[in-house]
């Protein structure tokens, strides 16, 4: 997270850390229901070499290639409240395109449910589309300035950007911002997600209900925190039906 601040412990109990067996995190995720984690599809396969850009089963991570840790705060150090969970199944969005990051969404089914407590709690799924001008919070253990990793979980508070503005900003780079994506960040750059934050939660507060819900998951962007280079997130509400269908979940 570029230009972020350390998150207060327990204010993001839904965040999941995807880490290799050596415990180094490689992506973020969000707990939904009692045993599902939403993350980015591009977290769950090897990088594609440029020639052959189609995704093969052999490229996908298998459930035993990684684990999920809930209740994390420190990036590397152990946390007293952490719960290490193994993975049962992985579901990539059927229309995920690794070249354009369209429908960059995946669901990880946990082999067992975490114990919910003050530091582990699922995030709600959106009941409706996001209203204009909303402010969101993005969290992650990804890179900060000068490619350094943080000690603890970091977060930024940024505004949602109009879809057309974002599309125009990326047009010169021949990057498509499709309807399943949502952008956020400052025009002059600064606060942004970055490598290692992928799959992590973008949330906002439903004031009336007093509940936080998942708006998006960190997906892609050009560099991190550059002017006119908004962060692009996978828009959850657009793919909510698929999530509900796969998880059988209801708020």
């Amino acid at each position, binding site marked *: 997270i570029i230009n972020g601040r350390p998150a*207060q412990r327990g204010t993001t109990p*839904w965040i999941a850390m995807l880490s290799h067996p050596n415990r180094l995190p490689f992506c973020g995720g969000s707990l939904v229901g009692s045993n599902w984690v939403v993350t980015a599809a591009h977290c769950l396969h090897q990088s594609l070499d440029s020639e052959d850009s189609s995704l093969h089963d052999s490229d996908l991570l298998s459930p035993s290639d990684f684990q999920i840790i809930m209740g994390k705060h420190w990036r590397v150090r152990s946390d007293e409240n952490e719960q290490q969970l193994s993975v049962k199944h992985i579901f990539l969005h059927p229309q995920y395109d690794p070249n354009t990051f369209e429908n960059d969404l995946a669901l990880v089914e946990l082999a067992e449910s975490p114990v*919910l407590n003050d530091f582990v709690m*699922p995030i709600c799924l959106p009941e409706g589309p996001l209203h204009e001008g909303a402010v969101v919070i993005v969290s992650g253990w990804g890179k900060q300035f000068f490619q350094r990793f943080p000690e603890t979980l970091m977060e930024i508070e940024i505004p949602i950007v109009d879809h057309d503005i974002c599309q125009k900003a990326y047009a010169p780079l021949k990057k498509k911002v499709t309807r399943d994506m949502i952008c956020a960040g400052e025009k002059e750059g600064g606060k942004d997600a970055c490598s290692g934050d992928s799959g992590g939660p973008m949330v906002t507060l439903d004031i009336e209900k007093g509940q936080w819900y998942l708006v998006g998951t960190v997906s892609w962007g050009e560099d991190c925190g550059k002017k006119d280079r908004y962060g692009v997130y996978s828009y959850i509400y657009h793919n909510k039906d698929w999530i509900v269908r796969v998880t059988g979940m*209801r708020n």
Partner: protein
Amino acid sequence: HAVELNDMFGQIQSPGYPDSYPSDSEVTWNITVPEGFRIKLYFMHFNLESSYLCEYDYVKVETEYQVLATFCGQETTDTEQTPGQEVVLSPGSFMSITFRSDFSNEERFTGFDAHYMAVDVDECTEREDEELSCDHYCHNYIGGYYCSCRFGYILHTDNRTCRVECSDNLFTQRTGVITSPDFPNPYPKSSECFYTIQLEEGFMVSLQFEDVFDIEDHPEVTCPYDYIKIKAGPKVWGPFCGEKAPEQINTQSHSVQIMFHSDNSGENQGWRLSYRATGNECPELQPPIHGKIEPSQAKYSFKDQVLISCDTGYKVLKDDVEMDTFQIECLKDGTWSNKIPTCKIADCGAPAELEHGLVTFPTRNKLTTYKSEIRYSCQQPYYKMLHNTTGVYTCSAQGVWMNEVLGRSRPTCLPVCGIPKFSRKLIAR
């Protein structure tokens, strides 16, 4: 001499007709037609010597048993009779005509010319003899007749009386009414009716005649025509007939045969009886606590069955098996087939665990029997109950924990989402 005539019609003339008839002659014509016909005779011409009471010349018409007419002269006077336009009908299928002339016939009387024909006898309208008339319906046809019977009856071999098929009446119920066929209309003739009351051993059948009792009898001879007889094992009651019904009959048996015989005559209303089977009485019953016995009777006798059931929330317990109802029967030796079972309160047992939830008992002794309550709740604040229910379950009469919204389904604790315990310090500008 005699002439035998067997045709269905014919002509008869005096000797020498149309010339005068000879003197001192006698001819007899014997006409025989088939059964079911009679003979009609009529004269076209009649001219005989007249004499006081036709003592000289005459034509005599007769049957086997009687003289139908004696004619002579030329016209009817107070002492002589001529046929004129009259016909003579024979009562049966035989007629004999005798012509006789004495020794003188000076006035050359020309005698007679007569014709005869067989005419059908309508047995249906003419039969006076009740002994011979049809019992129910009579159908006449040329040359005869036949009888038929009302629906449900059978024509007896005498082709006249109507009987019923009543030889296989079996009664197996514990009470019943038995009557003579067609009661209270007159019973059919020529019938042999058998009625069997067959119950399980242990029952005793008693018979009580009711209403009308009217069986053809005879002033001197005991029931020579129609009668009813009752048989149970070696014992026999009857034969009964007349108009005085027998007293109640306690057969002391579970199998009774009733025979009813009617001959081929008479019009009597018959009889009607009701029977009842009772068995040995069993001792009075006390319903179990929290239970009841149906039907509730002051007395129970053989074959009576009672159903024991329990109040709502209780189950019948018999040999450690729970059931909704239990049936016992009064046996023929006057004992019950089983003892009265007890009523056990329905017990829902320990409520099932709830994932991410817990169950609490409002009572200290954690009762799980009928009408006890438990409350399911979810692990607050991390889980919340899915349906809008109190989580209160009551032990139902069927021994199942029931909730007014979810029925017997347990609640679902869903994780509470998006409400972290720790909220960010107000940093929003």
